C-alpha cells in the first residue's frame, strides 16, 4: 500500500471547514464579550478606607453632589472632598462612631484619607467636568446611579466608544441644566421633550468634538 493516509481522511476537509466555522464564531463572540475593554473595568468596587455610603448621603439624605465634590461645576477636575468637609457634619453627627475613626484620625493628623480612586480616564485623554455638567450632562450619565450605591461601583465602561456615543448624539443624554444634579430625575419619553433636547443642543451650542484632538490634546 502506497497511500500515505487511510481512506477516511478524505472526509477531513469538510469536517475541518465546519470546525473552523464553529471555532471562529466562538472565538469572535468570546473575545468580543470578555476581552474588549468595554467589560474590563465595569463592576470595579474596591473597599474604601471608610465605609462611606453614597446611598445614605446622596440618596436618603439628598445631599447635593456639589456639597462634597465642590468644584465639579467650576473646574475640569471633580475633587474628592477633604476630611474637613466630612467633619463639617461628623464633628457633630455620629462623632464617636467607630466606623468614622479614620476620618477623625485624618483630621487630627492632617494626613488625607487614602480613598481608592475608581473612575479614571487615561492620561492621554482630556476630560473637563465643568463643561459637561454646565451643559446638561448629569453626573449619573458617567457615574451611574450613585445615590443607590452603598459601595461605589464602576458601572459604565469609560471606553472611547462610550464617550463617542454621547458625543455623536448629545440630545439623547442631555437634560435641563437645573436637573443635572437631580439624580432621581427621569427623562420624559415624549416627543415634546425630544424636541426640547434638540433645541437645547442647538441653542446652547453644544458641539461635542468628535475629532481626535478634541480629547487627545
Amino acid at each position, binding site marked *: 500500500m*502506497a497511500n*500515505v*493516509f487511510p481512506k477516511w481522511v*478524505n472526509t477531513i476537509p469538510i469536517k475541518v471547514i465546519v470546525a473552523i466555522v464553529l471555532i471562529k464564531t466562538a472565538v469572535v463572540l468570546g473575545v*468580543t464579550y470578555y476581552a*474588549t*475593554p*468595554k467589560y474590563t473595568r465595569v463592576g470595579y468596587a474596591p473597599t474604601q478606607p471608610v465605609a462611606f455610603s453614597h446611598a445614605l448621603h446622596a440618596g436618603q439624605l439628598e445631599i447635593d453632589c456639589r456639597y462634597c465634590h465642590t468644584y465639579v461645576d467650576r473646574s475640569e477636575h471633580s475633587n474628592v472632598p477633604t476630611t474637613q468637609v466630612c467633619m463639617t457634619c461628623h464633628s457633630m453627627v455620629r462623632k464617636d462612631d467607630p466606623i468614622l475613626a479614620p476620618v477623625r484620625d485624618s483630621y487630627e493628623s492632617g494626613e488625607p484619607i487614602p480613598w481608592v480612586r475608581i473612575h479614571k480616564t487615561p492620561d492621554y485623554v482630556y476630560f473637563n467636568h465643568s463643561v459637561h455638567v454646565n451643559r446638561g450632562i448629569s453626573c449619573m450619565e458617567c457615574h451611574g446611579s450613585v445615590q443607590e450605591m452603598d459601595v461605589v461601583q464602576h458601572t459604565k*465602561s469609560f*471606553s*472611547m*466608544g462610550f464617550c*463617542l*456615543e454621547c458625543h455623536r448624539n448629545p440630545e439623547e443624554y442631555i437634560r435641563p441644566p437645573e436637573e443635572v444634579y437631580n439624580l432621581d430625575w427621569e427623562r420624559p419619553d415624549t416627543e415634546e421633550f425630544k424636541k426640547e433636547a434638540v433645541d437645547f443642543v442647538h441653542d446652547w451650542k453644544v458641539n461635542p468634538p468628535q475629532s481626535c484632538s478634541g480629547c487627545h490634546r
Partner: protein
Amino acid sequence: MATTTQDSSMDATQAALLAKVQPIELHEQPLVTNNRDFNWVTDKICRIVETKTPTWWWICMAVALMTASFTGLGLLWLVSSGVGVWGLANPINWGWAIVNFVFWIGIGHAGTLISAVLCLLKQGWRTSINRAAEAMTIFAVVCAGIFPLFHVGRVWFAWWLFPIPNSNMIWPQFRSPLEWDVFAVSTYGTVSVLFWYMGMIPDLGVLRDRAVQRLNKGVYEGGSAIANKIAEGMDHFRKNFYAILAMGWRNAGNHWRNYEMAYLVLAGLSTPLVLSVHTIVSFDFALAVLPGWHTTIFPPYFVAGAIFSGFGMVLTLMLPLRALYGLHDLITQRHIDNMCKICLGTGSIVGYAYIMEFFIAWYGANPYESFAFINRAFGQYWWAYVMMFSCNVFTPQLFWFKKVRENAALVWIMSIFINVGMWFERFVITVTSLANDFLPTSWGYYSPTMVDILTFFGTFGLFSVLFLLFLRFLPLMPIAEVKFVMPEADPHGHHGDEKGDQH
C-alpha cells in the same frame, strides 16, 4: 471551439503563401541545456531537499540567525523605549523606517512580475526562477512589514489598523494612504502566499511520491546504521509533511486543466495587484503636498523601480545558488541575459522618470518644486543623489554589452549596486523632501541612530533565514513547469514540422 474559430478553409493563395514559408534556422539556446530528460530534472530539483543538509547551509544559517538577531534586538529596544530611539526628528519624521519598507516591498515585486507578468506574456524562461523569486517576494514582504508595524509605536495596538470592531467604536480612516498600505501590503502578502502555494502543489506531490517510493524500496545504505536510520526517519517525515501539503494531488489531466486555469487567473490577478501595491506605496508620498513628492508620475515610476530592484535581488540570489547547486543547465546564460535586459529596461524607465521629474519641476514653474529638485542633486544630500543616479541609471547601461552579461561575477556585483542604488533612491525621496520643506527655520539634517542601522541590517539576516529554510524544505523550482518548456513535453513532436490545424 469550432464555432469561434475563424473560417479555417484556405484557398489557393494562402496555400501558395504557406508554400513559400521557409524560416531561417535561428540557433537559440534551449531553456534546459545538455538534452536532459524528465527524470533528470525531477531528480535534480528534488535532491536539493532530499539529500543530507550541506555544511555550508548550517554555516549560512548560523550567520543569518546571528544577523537576524540584530533586528530582534533593535525592535526589543524600540518597543521597550519608544520610537524615539530611531533617528526621527522634526522635520524629518519619516526616516529609515519608510525607506526600508519601500526598499523591501520593492524587492518583492520581481517575484510577482516573474511569476505573473511573464506567465501572461508566455515567457518560457521564467520557469526555472519563478519559485525562488516568489519565495523572495513573500520573505521581502515579511521584512518590509516589520517597519511600518513597529513605526506605529504601540505595536500591540497595530490591529487597530484593520477594520475590526473595538471598544473605541472608531474605524480605520479609509481616506488615508497609510491605511491603503495596510490593505495593499496584507493583500499582496496573502495573494503571494496563495500563488506560491498553489504553484507548489504538484511539486509537493512529486516529493511525496518519491518519499513513498524510497520507503517502499526500503533500502537505506551507504552510511552508518544511525545515518541510515535518520535518513529513513526523514523520509517518513517527508512523506507525511508533503502528503498533507499536496492535498492529494494526482497529476490528473482534469487537475491540470483546472490548475492551469487557476494559475492563469491568479497571474492575471497578481499583475494588477503588483502594480497597485507599489502605486499605493507611492501614494504615501504623492498624496502629500510636498515638493518632490507630489508628482503624478510617481505610480508607474515606483512600480518600474520596484521591478528593477527586484530583479537586482533575484540576480543577487540566483547566481550563487546556481553555482552552489550546479544548476547551470536550468538557469542558463539565456536566463541571466534576460534578467540583465529587464534590469536595463526598468533601469532606463527609472532614468526616464528622474529626468521627467526634473524637467516638469522646471516646466511647472513652481519655485518650491524647482528648489526641491535642485536641492536634491546639489544640496546637503548630494552624495545620496549621486549614489542613486549612478547605481540606478548608469550601472544597468553596462548590460548593453554581451561581454558584461556573460561575466557572472560582474553581473552579481552589479546586481548589488542596483540594490544599493534603489535603497538610496528611497532615501533621497523620503529625506531630501522632508529635510527642506516650506519653512527654512525648521530645516534639518537626518542621521540614523544605531538602532536604525542594526534593525535594518538584521532584516537581511531574517530574509536569509527564511530563504534558507525555503531552500531546505521546499522545491526550489517548479518541476512541472520546467518540464513543460522542454521539447519532450510537446504533444506534437518537437521538430516543428507539423503544419496547419492541430485540433
